[in-house]
């Protein structure tokens, strides 16, 4: 596994742990932000296999969609999970601060864990 991919996986794991902690504390905004960060780091780890390193959130989501959304290399639902996580973060945090329930955030955290396991398997197949 490439060094950058390993770092991104570790970062994603930290973000997932942090998301769980914030969920337990009842902070939906921070938990959704951490869950989204985890999903983005996992998407970046996948893109790193192709030598791609997009930066901003929208670029990561778009590039992941191009490379993995319909290619069959990864389960296609991960692409929409990534978009959903970004939209949940946008709704709950920043300027909008809409009321988002903890249950919805917990779903995104669970998905981040499923995505993490899939990315680990994907990266192991590549190496």
């Amino acid at each position, binding site marked *: 596994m490439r060094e950058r991919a390993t770092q991104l996986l570790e970062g994603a794991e930290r973000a997932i742990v942090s998301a769980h902690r914030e969920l337990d504390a009842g902070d939906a905004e921070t938990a959704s932000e951490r869950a989204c960060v985890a999903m983005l780091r996992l998407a970046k780890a996948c893109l790193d296999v192709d030598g791609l390193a997009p930066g901003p959130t*929208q*670029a990561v*989501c*778009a590039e992941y*969609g*191009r490379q993995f*959304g*319909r290619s069959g290399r990864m389960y*296609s639902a991960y*692409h*929409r*999970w990534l*978009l*959903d996580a*970004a*939209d*949940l973060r*946008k*709704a*709950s945090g*920043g*300027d*909008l*601060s*809409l*009321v*988002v*329930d903890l*249950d*919805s*955030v917990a*779903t*995104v955290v669970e998905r981040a864990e499923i995505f993490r396991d899939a990315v680990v398997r994907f990266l192991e197949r590549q190496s």
Partner: protein
Amino acid sequence: MRTSVVVTENTTAADLALGRSAVRRRILVLLMAEPERRLHLRELQRRAGTSPGTASRELGRLVAAGLVGREAEGHQVYFRATSSPFAIAVRNLILVATEPDPGPMPLSPADPESADLRSDLRHLKPHASAPEPPSPPRVVQTRPSELNEPKRPDALGLKVAESLARILRPIYGERLVGLYLYGSRAHGESKADADVEVLIVLDAIERYGDELERSSAACASLSLEFGLIVSRVFVSGQTWSNRTDGHLMAIRSDVVSV
């Protein structure tokens, strides 16, 4: 050189108060929504969805007009709505002009806020007095820089939003109160790869994640089809109508109904 602008019955209150610059309007809405709060240039620029240069230029105009105050603190510069009678009157106009369904101006004698509004409007002669009999269009002298054409929504953004609306209408049925394009694509200032930002108003939202799930496949599919990100936000009809904080007000003042 001076140029004339004809003000007709089609000119909105917001146009009169703010000119037709969408960026200036968004900045002023952000500041007027929370007049007690000061905002840094960067934050205003980001929340108004514009460049630092444009934000700085529009803020300069608002400061010169006495609507916004500038406060320096160390190396930081903050902006805040002033409490001048003119600023208060403009704020009232904005509150009315950004309502989804404005209805009649609240000028009931029994309403203390209406009394304040009337008092503030007296300082705005002759633009905002009580209703007058029909008269020929008035001519207002203005600078050429204020003659910005109203921004048109980006064609691609509108097309994607319409596609999303077509998919979601059968899914939501009567629950769908409205679907709006907002952000840079709504006012035609977007970069080629800008997100298509859609705001979906539903009758009520019990669990936010359920609405994300219902629209998930549509957004992902359109994102792939058009090679960009389709981003959506859900709000309830009640939140959409009643919330008056800065960002939602700014969105509401600049949406395109799909």
